[in-house]
């Protein structure tokens, strides 16, 4: 019995894995152990127990439920259980792609076209070209230049990251005892009275990015994302959202190795039809992720402010963010054009509520931006 249970649990684990849950062997073992402590005649109890073992986040519950129903088909009597455990599973799970649901979700959000271009060579433009590149508007590069600009973006960001993380200051307040400083401070006294402390671990700033990916904005959004992604070790956390008509949280997708690949797909999702609804997107952000913004958070919104929604909604929701955030930065690539004036209704409504209004239309602007990402 014990062996058949273990085998059944292993098959159940395999089924869950095929459905996209990241099941480990330890969880399978735990599943077997859990059965020892559950009433096998009580289907609901077995369900709740195994759910606690195999599910790690609420989004996975529906998948688990389906697999559970498939596997532990109706049985209420104790005798029937072992029997139900053993044969039940068809070896081939019902047609699901090899990709896990989360991956395919990511693809949905970023559009089709999964062509793998492999690793490209790490060619970097010559120094003379770089300065010219830094001040050129992203939109004016030809498609075949973009890759080089990308690499340069990453390079600059990494260098900045190194410089920023080196900055550390001594502190008068608590933390670990700074022996060297303490000794020096007390040299003339012959006694260690005045203790010096090293500052507690530096609390890093958190970033929340809300990127407009509609129309012409997606190109700028891609560069901003790429840039901040390479800078991310400087921040305690970077949360990323994209919006056009709707808001999408893409933090998880961007965490993968294929970050650049994912980014490139961003162009595929142009949403020309609906226009941009910044206000509604911010409202959705406030409603669903209120906990992401606090005093240690810098909120960055990248958009040209062409809002087809209601400017009052935009102002109200932005105010809500401003009240909680450490700082609100609005990036508008159009600002790179000297003749630009923020006259759109959306932009006009937002202006009084933001702490910093900047461009982000070229590398030099991004570099300046990085210098201001502190609280």
């Amino acid at each position, binding site marked *: 019995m014990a062996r058949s249970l273990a085998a059944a649990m292993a098959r159940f684990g395999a089924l869950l894995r095929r459905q996209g849950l990241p099941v480990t062997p330890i969880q399978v073992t735990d599943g077997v152990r859990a059965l020892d*402590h559950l009433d096998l005649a009580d289907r609901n109890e077995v369900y709740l127990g195994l759910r606690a073992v195999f599910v790690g986040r609420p989004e996975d519950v529906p998948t688990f439920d389906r697999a559970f129903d498939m596997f532990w088909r109706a049985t209420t009597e104790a005798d029937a259980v072992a029997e139900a455990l053993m044969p039940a599973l068809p070896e081939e799970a019902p047609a699901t792609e090899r990709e896990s649901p989360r991956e395919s979700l990511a693809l949905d959000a970023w559009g089709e076209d999964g062509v793998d271009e492999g690793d490209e060579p790490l060619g970097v433009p010559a120094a003379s070209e770089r300065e010219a590149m830094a001040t050129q508007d992203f939109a004016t590069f030809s498609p075949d230049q973009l890759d080089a600009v990308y690499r340069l973006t990453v390079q600059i960001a990494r260098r900045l990251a190194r410089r920023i993380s080196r900055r550390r200051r001594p502190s008068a307040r608590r933390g670990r005892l700074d022996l060297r400083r303490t000794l020096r401070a007390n040299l003339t006294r012959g006694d260690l009275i005045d203790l010096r402390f090293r500052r507690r671990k530096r609390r890093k700033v958190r970033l929340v990015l809300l990127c407009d990916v509609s129309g012409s904005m997606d190109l700028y959004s891609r560069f901003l994302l790429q840039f901040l992604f390479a800078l991310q070790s400087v921040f305690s956390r970077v949360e990323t959202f994209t919006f056009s008509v709707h808001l999408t949280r893409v933090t998880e997708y961007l965490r993968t190795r294929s970050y650049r690949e994912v980014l490139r797909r961003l162009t595929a999702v142009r949403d020309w039809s609906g226009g941009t609804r910044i206000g509604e997107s911010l409202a959705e952000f406030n409603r669903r992720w209120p906990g992401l913004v606090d005093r240690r958070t810098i909120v960055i919104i990248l958009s040209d402010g062409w809002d087809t929604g209601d400017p009052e909604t935009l102002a109200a929701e932005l105010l809500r963010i401003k009240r909680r955030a450490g700082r609100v930065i609005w990036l508008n690539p159009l600002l790179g054009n000297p003749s630009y004036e923020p006259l759109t209704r959306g932009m006009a409504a937002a202006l009084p509520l933001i702490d910093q209004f900047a461009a982000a239309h070229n590398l030099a602007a991004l570099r300046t931006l990085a210098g201001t990402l502190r609280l």
Partner: protein
Amino acid sequence: MRDEIRKIQELMEAAEYVTDAPVATSVHLAMRLRKPLLIEGHAGVGKTEVAKVMARMLGTQLIRLQCYEGLDAGTALYEWNYQKQLLHIKLHESSGRSAKEEEREIFSEEFLLRRPLLQAITQEQSPVLLVDEVDRADEEFEAFMLEVFSEWQVTIPEIGTIKATHPPYVILTSNRTRELSDALRRRCLYLWIDYPTYDKEIRIIERKVPGINHRVAGELARFMESLRRMRLAKVPGVAETLDWAHALAGLHADHLDETLVSETIGCVLKDADDIKRFRAEVQKSGVASFLHISG
């Protein structure tokens, strides 16, 4: 249902915690399999309470580690009491003891400040270790904690290795302000606590606010259900329900009417915009609309 699980439910109810099968089953398995239990859910649904009740049930100590951004291993595990060490050296300056002796003395347990994780592994009886709001701590700290959890031993260079003879029961809570690592999730049993259902909320109200009128309790639960469906910035949790229930019980209310609601709504809605939105809704369709579920 297993007797043990039923017993847990009874014990939890006896400890003033209104529970249901998912909670009881998870707690049961966490204790039996000796695995950490990760509890997620909205603010104010009673996640922390589970640990407290568990400690009371087991008749053991509750040790709490409150997480925050920047929490580091030192603060969570142990620190040396520098001031006390220095004072000690100064007091014994003229005693003529060797530096070695001195050193052995000031790096002894007497000068050790035990922080929650160290406390948790040096108890006579397995305590309940509550790691509260783990999503607020940094990812590096998460990794450090996993390391402690896997061995239940800690090495202090000056003293040696301390291994838990009675490893703690661990409850972790998270408000999901950040996704926890998969490594952590895989090592834990998982429980998601949602807002209570109508029936459960009535039971909670009547259990925690004994003086309340039965009808008011029902109306309150209905009201909260409707409120949570509104698009609010701060969705009220169970703690808010109970505040409100206490207020209404104190006013000896026997039913909810418009005046009473508008006077006391501050107990549950704590955001100016939410209150504005709520008042607009009441203007439009009346308080009664909150007492019927439209579907």
